[in-house]
């Protein structure tokens, strides 16, 4: 048994806010305070350092076809950040790779762990690309992984919806998709819009009919939100709303929240969806209206998708929006794909500039959203890696949230007009360590239904991070003193000391397997792959590379 003495513990799931406590770890789990005569094999005195559960990123593009497109597209970015192999003796071997905007899988895992993250969720796995995505995640070490399957622009679903299929049939198809792609949740990207782009539509409003199927994005959201709810999947429907990046899209975003009709809904990278059309440049912040709506609607959660300045690459399933944004590509190259009657993708390198009015205002809008949403259980810290910024900028973002004078000093550096348009300077709020622990640990674990992660109670997996308290929160969160994964010390002073593999999470919903009859017919008739070969079995999943499968049973709610 390992004892961590005297840490200042932040464990919001149990209401623990900076109390000095000891933690006990045995067989990879946190255990209750043992009897005085229990054998303590080793102990570490934490001298009042800050202790939190391992951080969980519920929206980060770490693996899958579009990330490999982004990697292959940017050799010039990799060249600036090569990562040599390292031998750790008994700790194993760290593979060579590359970092920055679109890091290699190995480097992704190492650097997440070195910041105290122990789980990452890829939010845009195409079912047609699931085997590939799991192979990539299998080579992403250190952290536990999971992925959200993308639906809503696939022809099979749109056929069902346009033919007026019973919700139960839609639920079965959604259940089958989760099962066959080994996913943790369902995401919808520009609902119906990816498909509409294949029919030459360049935009699809929430109430607009798909050019062929005739259904609206609103109908898509409603049907999928219902299916996710009925199947009992913990994470709500994960929505990348229509009209990404378009000035004035805040109205669409508010209408998208309403489209769930009270069912749980998660709006992702909401910063990109909080824009107005006021001012000379017809681009303004609607953060206040969006935040007010989130504050009011308890069925809504969101992650921010903060942008930070510098070179990155945007990689999205939203081929329609990415094609629209191609003119902003920097360097000037971009990739757009239509994929397998399933979805699509677009990859556009981007350089966010602090002196550019639009970019500067995007930066301010993200921060305003963080500061205006009052409930940290329903707003999550993301940069939509790598779309707003690479995940390695999280410590900087945390400092912006926790340190008002630092934030205002950065505000002085951005485009002056954008700074003047923003209400950021007047905002007093500074996030506390407790709130950071909520939004990066307790809340994502709860949202994903990870009962033994994101907290430090007895029975939790011993994913534990220890930070040296430092007034410079960026320095503090960049280099944890200790990171434990399932009870093993994997990082010391911000450096990997032991390589582990990480498990993969997937939900196991109950559904009527009779859906395979129409599916098999559909695949045989129209697809270039057999339905049987799209399915990824549990055995195959494990041979993709993860240490093990962590299945999550779903308790269905009858339709």
């Amino acid at each position, binding site marked *: 048994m390992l004892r961590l003495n005297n840490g200042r513990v932040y464990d919001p799931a149990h209401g623990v806010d900076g109390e000095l406590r000891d933690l006990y770890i045995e067989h990879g789990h946190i255990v209750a305070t043992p009897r005085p005569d229990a054998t303590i094999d080793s102990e570490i005195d934490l001298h009042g350092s800050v202790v939190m559960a391992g951080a969980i990123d519920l929206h980060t593009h770490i*693996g899958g*076809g579009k*990330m*490999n497109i982004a*990697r*292959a*597209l*940017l*050799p010039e970015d*990799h*060249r600036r950040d*090569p*990562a*040599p*192999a390292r031998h750790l003796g008994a700790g194993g071997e760290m*593979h*060579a*790779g*590359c970092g920055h905007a*679109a*890091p*290699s*899988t190995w480097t992704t895992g190492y650097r997440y762990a070195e910041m105290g993250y122990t789980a990452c969720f890829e939010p845009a796995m195409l079912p*047609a*690309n699931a*085997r*590939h995505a799991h*192979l*990539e995640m299998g*080579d992403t070490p250190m952290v536990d992984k999971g992925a959200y399957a993308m639906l809503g622009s696939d*022809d099979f679903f749109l*056929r069902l919806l346009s033919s007026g299929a019973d919700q139960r049939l839609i639920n079965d198809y959604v259940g089958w998709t989760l099962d066959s792609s080994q996913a943790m949740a369902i995401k919808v990207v520009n609902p119906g819009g990816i498909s509409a*782009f*294949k*029919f*030459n539509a360049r935009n699809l409003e929430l109430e607009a009919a798909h050019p*062929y199927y005739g259904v609206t994005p609103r109908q898509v959201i409603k049907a999928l939100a219902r299916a996710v709810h009925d199947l009992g999947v913990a994470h709500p429907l994960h929505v990348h709303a229509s009209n990404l990046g378009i000035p004035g899209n805040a109205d669409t975003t508010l209408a998208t929240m309403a489209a769930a009709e009270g069912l749980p809904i998660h709006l992702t990278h909401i910063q990109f969806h909080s824009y107005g059309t006021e001012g000379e440049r017809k681009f303004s912040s609607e953060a206040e209206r969006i935040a007010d709506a989130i504050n009011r609607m308890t069925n809504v959660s969101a992650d921010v998708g903060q942008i930070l300045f510098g070179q990155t690459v945007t990689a999205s399933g939203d081929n329609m929006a990415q*094609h629209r944004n191609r003119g902003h*590509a920097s360097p*000037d*190259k*971009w*990739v*757009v*794909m*239509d*994929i*397998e*009657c*399933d979805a699509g993708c677009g*990859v556009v390198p981007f350089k966010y500039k602090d002196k550019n009015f639009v970019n500067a205002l995007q930066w301010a809008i993200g921060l305003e959203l963080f500061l205006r949403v009052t409930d940290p259980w329903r707003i999550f810290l993301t940069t939509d890696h790598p779309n707003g910024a690479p995940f390695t900028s999280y410590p900087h973002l945390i400092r912006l949230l926790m340190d008002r004078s630092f934030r205002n000093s950065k505000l002085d550096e951005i485009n002056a007009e954008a700074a003047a348009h923003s209400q950021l300077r007047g905002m007093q709020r500074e996030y506390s360590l407790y709130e950071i622990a909520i939004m990066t640990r307790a809340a994502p674990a709860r949202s994903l239904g990870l009962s033994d992660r994101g907290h430090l109670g007895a029975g939790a997996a011993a994913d534990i991070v220890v930070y040296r308290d430092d007034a410079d929160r960026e320095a503090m969160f960049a280099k944890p003193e200790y990171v434990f994964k399932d009870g093993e010390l994997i990082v010391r002073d911000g450096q990997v000391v032991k390589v582990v593999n990480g498990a993969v999470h997937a939900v196991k919903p109950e559904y009527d397997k009779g859906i395979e009859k129409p599916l098999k017919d559909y695949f045989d*008739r*129209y*697809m*270039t*792959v*057999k339905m*049987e*070969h799209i399915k990824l079995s549990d055995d195959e999943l494990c041979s*993709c590379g993860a240490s093990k499968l962590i299945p999550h049973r779903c308790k269905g709610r009858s339709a």
Partner: protein
Amino acid sequence: MSDSFVSCPFCGLLCDDLQVDQRDGRARVASAGCARAARLFDVPAAGQALVAGKPVDTLAAIRAASALLKRSRRPLLSGLACDVTGHRAALALAERLGGVVDHMNGVAQFRNWQVFQDGGWMTTTLSEVRNRADLIVLAGVDVSRFPRFFERCLPPQSQQPSQFGDLQRRYIVLGDKPSPTAEQPHDAAFAISMPNRRLGDFFLALRARLAGRRLDHAAIEGVDPVQIEALLETLRAARYGVLVWNAAELDFPNADLTIQAMVDLVKDLNQSTRWSGLPLGGSDGDTSAAQVCTWQTGYPLRMAFEAGGPRYEPKLFATAALLAAGEVDALVWISAFDPARTPPVTDPAHCPSIVLGRADMVFAQPPEVFIPVAVPGVQHGGFLHRMDAVVALPLHAPAPAELLSVAQALAAIQQEIPHAAA
């Protein structure tokens, strides 16, 4: 015996509707498949390891390979015709040895990668083509290299919306092989014969006309300007056009510029209607090799593991260039799919070769070490990517064999290296 469908690993289409029987330990295609599949599924269940051309047991061959590689300062791991697990093992060994990696189809792959990395592109996948393509341009493509392309990707039946009318596919055939063959459509809207090396100029001329510029007649020598205009109208009128090329067949100097002209035309046409490119390829596991190397290192092959981290040199790290310049001192050649894909001949004094190949591989000049390996998708299971890189399919083992897989053989070599005599 076959009660389920298997994937065929022998070209980039990865048809997954084959039924394969086993007879006396050898696989036999029972239904679907093509002549190439029928030939390549049939592989002996056992093979003979060789060192210096003499039969040895497999362990001795592995030890000999380890000793060679221990002495090497800069080995090249090329060929890479195997499955994802084999590619993972090859990269692990290259990392351990400070080696360089390239694929046997690297010349063709890098014609595409150069264009991709310079400007990006718009592409599509096989099921999209099947269900939406109403105009298909075959640009210098001999589709018989992908024998079931038309059957699998362009059959009459599609889910193309009926409100737009039935999907009437039209074809435009350009290049060296403009006459429709038996497998190809006979109703080509246009069939224009020209050397493949002139396709680039031709597509640039189309781009210029599309942009409303006047054409210098020299640019389209041999092609009737009226035909150009009619062709342009047809391209513009497509609802979902697909431009198909195969980088391996654009085999002339600076062919990447021809591909550049094609992908730029596709981008231009997308300003008003929908078009996508379809780069054919993916045979010999080349898509998987590039994909695995990209996710693990950031680079799509032609990279070296150096002390400072991965180094990418898409021109310098070509197999032929490295061998010609004497920049590598050992060659590991992996060729588990097609026995005809034997290694380039090297001078054994300066660059000995170790071959992991099919049991039925025959050599004009035997390599220093030959280790027979199982054929992925025939003799062991695994994963392999289709040409579009989106779909990775399970490989099956219709005729399991005792032979080591590529991954097993490479892992065994890597394990032996610390113990090998230098």
